[in-house]
């Protein structure tokens, strides 16, 4: 009895007890399970939180930025593959859809003939640039009803074309 009491006190104090191994083991087990369980729970929670954060960071941004890139490259390559005098009509319904999803209401396509640069913007920011190598004048227009981009490829150095382009620009501006 005295031995038991003594061993209990010694066990509570945390020292090694050779007299009652059973009680000491129980005591140590009780002390070690909870923190381990806590660690596991916290670890699981952190991993879940990291996964959720990653999912929400990655999912929308990858979609929009990848599409900006795809469309910019597609338009530039189409310009490079065509001859002056040809017109290209491109369905840009998906671009409108993505821009709408990301609540972007600005200009989604811009073609700079001086820099040979195609810029596509489907979300806030400056968008994605891709260059075409053709020395051509691209007259372009977006049909917002049909959700269609029209590219009219013209020779850069023809004065007649320059005049036509200016008339077209005035029309577009009006």
């Amino acid at each position: 009895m005295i031995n038991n009491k003594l061993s209990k006190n010694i066990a509570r104090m945390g020292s090694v007890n050779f007299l009652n191994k059973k009680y000491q083991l129980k005591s140590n087990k009780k002390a070690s399970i909870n923190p381990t369980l806590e660690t596991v729970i916290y670890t699981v929670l952190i991993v879940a939180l990291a996964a959720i954060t990653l999912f929400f960071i990655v999912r929308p941004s990858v979609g929009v930025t990848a599409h900006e890139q795809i469309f910019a490259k597609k338009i530039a390559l189409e310009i490079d593959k065509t001859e002056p005098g040809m017109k290209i009509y491109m369905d840009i319904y998906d671009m409108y859809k993505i821009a709408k999803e990301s609540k972007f209401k600005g200009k989604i396509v811009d073609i700079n003939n001086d820099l040979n640069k195609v810029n596509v913007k489907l979300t806030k920011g400056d968008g994605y640039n891709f260059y075409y190598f053709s020395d051509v004048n691209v007259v372009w227009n977006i049909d917002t009803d049909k959700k269609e981009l029209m590219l009219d490829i013209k020779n850069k150095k023809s004065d007649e074309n320059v005049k036509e382009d200016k008339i077209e620009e005035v029309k577009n501006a009006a």
Partner: protein
Amino acid sequence: MLLKDKRAYRELTGMFIIGLAAVGLVIAIYMGTAIFFGVIVDVRMEEAQALNDRLFSVIVMNGELQEDVLKNDFNILERARLDKKIIGDKKDAQNFLFFQVDILSDGESVKKFIEGNRDYREMCGLSKEGEIKCVQEKLVLSDGYVVEILTASNQRGERV
């Protein structure tokens, strides 16, 4: 003593959890950034091919060499409608394209056109995976000329 051990254990566990959280957060931010900026739709091969096709259409007509190609005043950039800002030799030109056109007769080069980033010529030979994309084509014409065209692109586009 045991109480002290428990506290020490919990403190250690707490530190471990904070450390784990920090590591998790860093990984999440790193991966998010990497995916955000790392998605690359590679069209360099298509661009090199488009350039190659354009050059062939200027050099060759109906299976024969164009009449004026061998003349000294033949301006390949102008004829192929290639913009000097993109592929020219000027310092302010974009430096991501290259082409070399070699016209051979009886095994000897009679005319050569080289424009763009000259470093790409050797890189194409070494064919370093991922660095640039090259397209090399050879055409034997009906008038006996052989046209070899090597084009390379390294345009990855830019997020602005």
